[in-house]
């Protein structure tokens, strides 16, 4: 039964050994399992050298491990290593597409389609591109259940002016899992490119970038049990090869003369400067960690936790829960507001019980405006979340109501 109590998956996260810590903020950043910490330390303690240039054994060792890390990361989402570009985060990955692909493919009078539920990182780059080239944004509305309408997408695509459809795979506020395969297929049929922001999806549900078929798919390492400082851009080879470089400098070149430069092959053409080497190795260990647990099992666990959370939170007096009613339509997070208290006050009081949740606009100010709230409180889940954590959250919300309840 979906709402039965459920223990965490059998995992070892050193930070969760802290007495009383209830970590419900994995959508902001994940905690790190021991195997990832070990991989990071092992690389830096025993295998560290710069990549792509050394000929001594230690450098070759580092090179091999870096390539193996990229291959693991690519395989995790069904991508080719050559089509897997390492950036510093998902935001930079989207900006790479905006700057490198954008100006040559979006012009005056063209349009870009976004959903109202996008993170600022998937809004601002496109707004900037539009104002640079004289294009317009078209916003797919989210309904009361947090869902977008494919009919509205068809309407937007009908005049043939849309050049890019950029959509989150899983909303970081509503939790909604968007039908990305259908969105991508419709965009392609209308001659538009597509970009999917998978930051909230890749660590939590099966993702195969080939099956989704998007031209670009981005996600980030630190939300996927890996370190900060690494993001991923998976792109279709034909597009990546046709695009000019984004950042330029070392590593991304083939030859440099006093007069001109020729660029390196994929994926290195888009990776100027020393990459995050240890981080790639550690993220390789992180996706291995998820793969060993089984991504289907991870999804089943987090869906069950989400169902339990939805059922438990629904009973809290004066609560409004955002997003789909059904856990199966959601990623592992729930945003809510209480009638009696501002989300910041909620999070502050929860924090005193060591219940770690996020409060604010979640980098989605347009969505907040649409929902008619200034902010929400968000609890988000991971492989280590148990129904005991949800019980602690609900218990602590009771304290909030005790303090603020008679407003």
């Amino acid at each position, binding site marked *: 039964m979906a709402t039965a109590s459920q223990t965490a998956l059998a995992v070892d996260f050193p930070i969760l050994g802290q007495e009383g810590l209830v970590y419900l903020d994995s959508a902001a950043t994940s905690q790190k399992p021991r195997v990832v910490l070990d991989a990071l330390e092992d690389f830096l303690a025993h295998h560290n050298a710069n990549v792509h240039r050394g000929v001594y054994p230690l450098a070759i060792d580092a090179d091999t491990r870096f390539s193996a890390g990229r291959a693991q990361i690519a395989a995790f989402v069904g991508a080719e290593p050559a089509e897997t570009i390492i950036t510093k985060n998902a935001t930079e990955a989207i900006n790479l597409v905006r700057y490198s692909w954008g100006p040559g493919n979006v012009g005056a009078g063209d349009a870009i389609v976004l959903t109202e539920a996008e993170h600022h990182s998937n809004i601002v780059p496109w707004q900037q591109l539009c104002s640079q080239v004289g294009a317009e944004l078209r916003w797919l509305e989210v309904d009361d259940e947090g869902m977008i309408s494919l009919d509205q997408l068809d309407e937007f695509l009908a005049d043939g002016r849309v050049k890019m459809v950029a959509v989150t795979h899983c909303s970081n506020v509503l939790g909604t899992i968007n039908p990305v395969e259908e969105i991508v297929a419709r965009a392609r049929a209308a001659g538009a490119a597509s970009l999917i922001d998978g930051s909230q999806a890749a660590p939590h549900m099966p993702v195969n970038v080939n099956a989704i078929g998007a031209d670009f798919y981005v996600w980030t390492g630190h939300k996927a049990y890996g370190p900060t400082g690494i993001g991923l851009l998976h792109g279709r080879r034909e597009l990546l090869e046709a695009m000019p470089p984004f950042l330029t400098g070392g590593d991304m070149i083939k030859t440099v003369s006093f007069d001109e430069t020729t660029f390196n092959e994929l994926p290195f053409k888009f990776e100027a400067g020393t990459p995050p080497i240890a981080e790639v190795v550690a993220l390789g260990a992180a996706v291995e960690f998820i793969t060993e647990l089984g991504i289907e099992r991870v999804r089943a666990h987090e869906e069950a936790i989400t169902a339990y959370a939805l059922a438990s939170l629904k009973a809290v007096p004066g609560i409004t829960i955002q997003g789909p009613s059904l856990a199966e339509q959601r990623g592992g997070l729930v945003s809510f507001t209480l009638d009696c208290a501002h989300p*910041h006050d909620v999070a502050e*009081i929860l924090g005193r019980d060591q219940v770690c949740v996020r409060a*604010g606009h979640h980098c989605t100010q347009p969505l907040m405006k649409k929902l008619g709230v*200034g*902010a929400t409180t968000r609890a988000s889940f991971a492989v280590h979340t148990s129904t005991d954590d949800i019980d602690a959250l609900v218990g602590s919300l009771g304290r909030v109501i005790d303090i*603020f309840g008679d407003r």
Partner: protein
Amino acid sequence: MDDALYREEILEHYKRPHNFGPMETPDRESFDTNPLCGDELRVMLKVDDNDVVEEVRFEGHGCAISQASASMISDEIKGMKLDDLARLDRSAVLDLLGIDISATRMKCALLSLKVLKSAAIGTLADWEPDTVDAARPAGGAQL
């Protein structure tokens, strides 16, 4: 664990804020937001011929700390000259609140002071020192 942050007086101001609501034809007006949490605050002043605050109203939404601080300081500035209002520092609000404010909540506490000073000087005032980076550790220590 105590709930000093939410002591009764602060909750009282939050639930029943003083000087809250619109003002017709204010002499001075300013609006600003707290980017951290999306709090919004507008203050409106009526001043006499000597630039003394006769009346103050504020509108907006925000957490208990930001709303209570706006309510408390609005009582204090009636009868104050705009020049003196513009010279207030953070202690004016923090002393009224009378509780420890963590670094991440400092902007919540000081938004009302910022907007009031903005209204007084007629242009957007800076945040008080040490509130620029909300993530800075408590006590003003540098990262």
